């Protein structure tokens, strides 16, 4: 007993009431895959690398610009946990400022408990995704269409959620 008590006293400093560290991503992302028609005719598509992409949230609370992403064929964006809709614009080539489109995401938020170390986050269920060039007054569309590939945005690795089809340059 004396040995046990002594050992516990020696170990006392090593046992602080620290919170466990959070060892996993807290915020989940929507993965966009960029595709282009492989030929003028037919329904085959191939990945397309955007030469110098610029992508931004349209109505985020703060100015946030992601520019100069070279050769991207996939890109992860985050949906807003504050509302059920959010918009992003994509400009495939920063040297052509008039050629950009807006992606509008409609979704349902689902509060998800990760752990006591990480707390809560939001998962999403995509309802619809649309594209338009009019929001920012652009007249030339780079995007042909968008298709939801997987509605559940839940942090599962390797999933593509939205396919974005670009016109041939």
């Amino acid at each position, binding site marked *: *007993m004396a*040995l*046990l008590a002594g*050992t*516990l006293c020696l*170990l*006392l400093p*090593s*046992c*602080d*009431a620290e*919170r466990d560290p959070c060892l996993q991503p*807290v*915020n989940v992302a929507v993965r966009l895959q960029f595709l282009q028609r492989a030929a003028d005719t037919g329904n085959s598509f191939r990945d397309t690398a955007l030469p110098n992409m610029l992508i931004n*949230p349209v109505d*985020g*609370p*703060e100015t*946030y610009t992601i520019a100069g992403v070279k050769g991207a064929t996939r890109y992860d964006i*985050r949906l*807003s*946990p*504050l509302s059920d809709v*959010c918009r992003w614009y994509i400009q495939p080539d920063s040297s052509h400022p008039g050629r950009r489109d807006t992606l509008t995401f409609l979704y349902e938020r689902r*509060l998800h*408990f990760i*752990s*006591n170390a990480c*707390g*809560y*986050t*939001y998962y999403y269920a995509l309802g619809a995704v649309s594209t338009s060039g009019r929001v920012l007054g652009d007249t030339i569309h780079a995007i042909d269409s968008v298709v939801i590939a997987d509605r559940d945005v839940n942090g599962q690795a390797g999933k593509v959620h939205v396919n974005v089809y670009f016109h041939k340059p």
Partner: protein
Amino acid sequence: MIRLTRYIVLLMLALAAFPALAQDEPADDEPPARPKVDYTLLPRQLRFSLDMSKPVAATMVKDRRGYELMADYHFRKDLYAVAEGGWGSVDYRYPDLSYASSNGFLRLGIDKNMLPRLSLTDWDMVFVGARYGMAFINRGAATYTTTDSLWGTTTGVMPAKTFTGHWIEVTGGMRVEIVRSLFVGWNIRGRFRMNHKAFSDLAPAYVAGYGKGDRKSTFDFNFYLGYALRWKKAGQRTAVTASPESVPLPAPQPQSTPVVSPDEAALDAIQTSDPVFAPDPAESVPEERQLSPATETPDVPPVPSSESEQ
């Protein structure tokens, strides 16, 4: 906490080796003959134990506390029925997650002693066991905040919830009788939760009797201090009572030294010296009949004799 757990488990394993080191070396390569114990002569034993590790841990980890009690009853040769219970709470206060939770728990199972019994007074044990556990959890309302560096923060309240947790566990450990009827010992435990869905929306950071509520499996240890109550079984064959048919009358002995087996001597020692081991008055033999069967055949009715319980 993980580091503390590792140290204490290593300490317990080291302590477990002490009795082995204290054994005398055998005189030769032949293993010593092990005395055969007549289990029908064993008294009943009910032992109550208090887990001393949880109050000590509560002084170091301020936001949670737990208390555990254990009772085990020797009901068969090497088997003990075990019931454990307790209660505990956690007060989890962080900027992004804040709530309080408390629970009581109950565990039922058996332990099997793996240590050969050396005599009727040998109650030391090294054991393995299994348990089924359930906890009755009462979690209060939780306040949460989510943070997104791009879009900002959200806050909300998760309503209070009362639910039940179920798990199974495997355990092992040892008990040593340091003085008569007073035991110390430890358990290590591996637990596996069975109903994950009940814990999905907000699992308490600490569930007394189980451990971290957001883990599907947990590891734990206990350090017990226990006290045993012993009493004679109803209808138990005593060391001084024998059937006249089974014990032939011996030839008159020139010396009056009584012949008593080691087990009988041990039981006599228990009966005469252990205050908690009181013989049943209905079965007590009159004083003038308490003679060795080797010297006189008692005229009490014969009691059926069984060699062992198994």
